């Protein structure tokens, strides 16, 4: 009680009468140190990776990014197929997850169902984020791989003339990894999209109804456009998450550094390549892997910064509407 009174008096008394409180200063110093350490750690990690990667950077230059062959036994290192695999698996995952996640977000932000039921569904979707990556990998191996093997063969048979579905079909393929990745990023997309849908000011909705728009028209014409920046941000953040995902992808993508147009062919991603080859790497291969890690870090950082910037802009633009 005394503490409360004291703080009230200090507040009323103004800065001149404020007694010296070492705890606040200590706390501020601790916060400063903690945040400085976080930044320092990132700089340190980047510096360390850059140092280790330097021999490969000077040796292979930018040709590393356009090289199509990764053969450690011959000292040939090129990551183009892996870069394409990283981008393709993440984009495909978004392609699957975005419509689904958005639909769930709309469903959960409208009053289609009683609130407790919505809360329950929301909780279940967000729980997906708590499942460890390796469990997704195992689930993929036992459920998704056989499915892709079975239906992929049908797909290759019927649509094999398109390079996207050309055979031979593999169970462990780009498609398999993307499907599981889609499930893994679903909670991110759903949660952030739902938040931005809920944040749409109720006045907008009421005005839309008042003008005679149906619910369908209101959702499509008013709510979604207003929440669009938030939805875009959720997509970009999920993209970053999908690119960095390692374990489940390494278990499902087939780990092959070959260029292929087909979704049914095995592929590889930067993070899976690192996870697979680091332990036994030696000499210039370690450098090349560090170079690949650097590329991955830069890609993920760029994507995350972009996502964050968009998210910030959304919040700013919504402030005016409230």
């Amino acid at each position, binding site marked *: 009680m005394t503490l409360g009174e004291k703080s009230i008096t200090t507040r009323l008394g103004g800065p001149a009468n404020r007694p010296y409180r070492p705890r606040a200063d200590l706390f501020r110093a601790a916060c400063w140190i903690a945040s400085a350490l976080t930044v320092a750690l990132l700089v340190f990690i980047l510096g360390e990776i850059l140092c280790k990667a330097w021999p490969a950077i000077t040796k292979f230059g930018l040709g590393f990014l356009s090289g199509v062959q990764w053969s450690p036994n011959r000292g040939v290192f090129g990551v183009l197929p892996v870069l394409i695999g990283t981008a393709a698996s993440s984009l495909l995952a978004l392609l699957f997850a975005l419509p689904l996640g958005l639909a769930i977000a709309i469903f959960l932000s409208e009053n289609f169902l009683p609130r407790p039921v919505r809360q329950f569904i929301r909780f279940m979707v967000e729980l997906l984020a708590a499942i460890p990556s390796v469990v997704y990998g195992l689930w993929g*191996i036992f459920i998704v791989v056989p499915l892709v*093997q079975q239906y992929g063969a049908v797909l290759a048979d019927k649509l094999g003339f398109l390079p996207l579905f050309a055979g*031979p079909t593999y169970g462990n393929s780009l498609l398999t990894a993307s499907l599981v990745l889609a499930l893994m990023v679903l909670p991110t997309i759903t949660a952030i999209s739902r938040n931005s849908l809920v944040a749409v000011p109720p006045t907008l909705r009421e005005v839309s109804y008042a003008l005679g728009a149906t619910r369908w028209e209101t959702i499509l014409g008013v709510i979604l456009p207003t929440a669009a920046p938030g939805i875009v941000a959720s997509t970009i953040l999920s993209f970053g998450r999908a690119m960095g995902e390692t374990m489940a992808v390494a278990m499902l993508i087939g780990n092959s550094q070959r260029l292929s147009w087909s979704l049914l062919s095995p592929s590889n991603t930067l993070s899976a390549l690192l*996870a697979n080859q680091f332990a036994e790497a030696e000499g210039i291969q370690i450098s090349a892997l560090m170079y690949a890690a650097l590329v991955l870090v830069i890609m993920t950082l760029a994507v995350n910064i972009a996502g964050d910037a968009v998210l910030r802009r959304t919040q700013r633009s919504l402030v005016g509407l409230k």
Partner: protein
Amino acid sequence: MTSLNHTTLQTRNLSMNRPFLAAALIASSALPNLGAATAITGSGATFPAPLYQRWASDFKKVNADVMVNYQSIGSGAGVTQFLQGVTDFGASDTAMKDEEISHARQNAVMIPATAGSIVLAYNVPGVQTGLKLSRTAYIGILVGGITKWNDPAIAKANPGVNLPAVPITVISRSDGSGTTAVFTGHCAEVSAEFKEKVGSGKAVTWPVGVAGKGNEGVTALIKQTPGAIGYVEYGFAAYNNLAMAALENKAQNFISPSIESCAATLASVKLPGDLRAFILDPEGSNDYPVVTFTWVLVKKTYGDAAKAAGVKAFVTYGLTTGQAAAPQLGYVTLPPEVVTKAMAALEAVK
């Protein structure tokens, strides 16, 4: 405390009370050679890891003074850790490269510890056992020239076997591994096409198929994929009941992988003075073609008598009593003359 010498400390060990023991422990950490148990750490190849770990636990029963800890982190990392002095012994299933040897020559000895074969395991619907693969056939499969199981090149060696028209999925290792090095070494030796398209080494680029991490990853993929074929270490394949193909050897006989056929290969190998031998394509008529020794790396001088004695005792145990455990785990007992040479090399350790 420091005036206590080694023997008195050991003889009084049992009757010590607690504070005295604590004081003795502090003293022993300050002075080497005083501790009751010497800890020996080793790391390296995953291929012989089950055997080394078995040796370590059996060795503890006969020699309670020495605690051996072996971690299977891979040949490459094992050799690096050993050369950096992090571990007391290393293990590698590809003999060290010449430059590594010269780097460590002053102070390293390679001792063959066991041997094993690498097999082509398969999962072909309707063919439970007894598949034979000629050199043309398995090289063709691996480089992508043969894509269906009913290909004439496979059928030729398997009269009477009903081979399905299922596509072939080649399963390889996604991680760098000594197993890959030995297997590709053999393939590159027997086929110029393989040498040109794939080459040999711990991590190569395969023209076809998918890759799994570790022997276990490859095994899982083979089990799960109808039409799969992949290379795994024999002990692993046997333990997981995978069907293994008989391979054509240099004498043009089809030899099934087994402890016996692997031993036959080893018997025909002449070990050179430095105990490094690469068995790329054995010539004996009953030799299984893909066989490798696996080596333990020890230092010549440890600068610590207890450590040197511990390492020596452990490796000696492995080379003698420990050899009996090898066949139980899918490895091959070393031929007596190899053991003799290995024991002689071990003498140099001080």
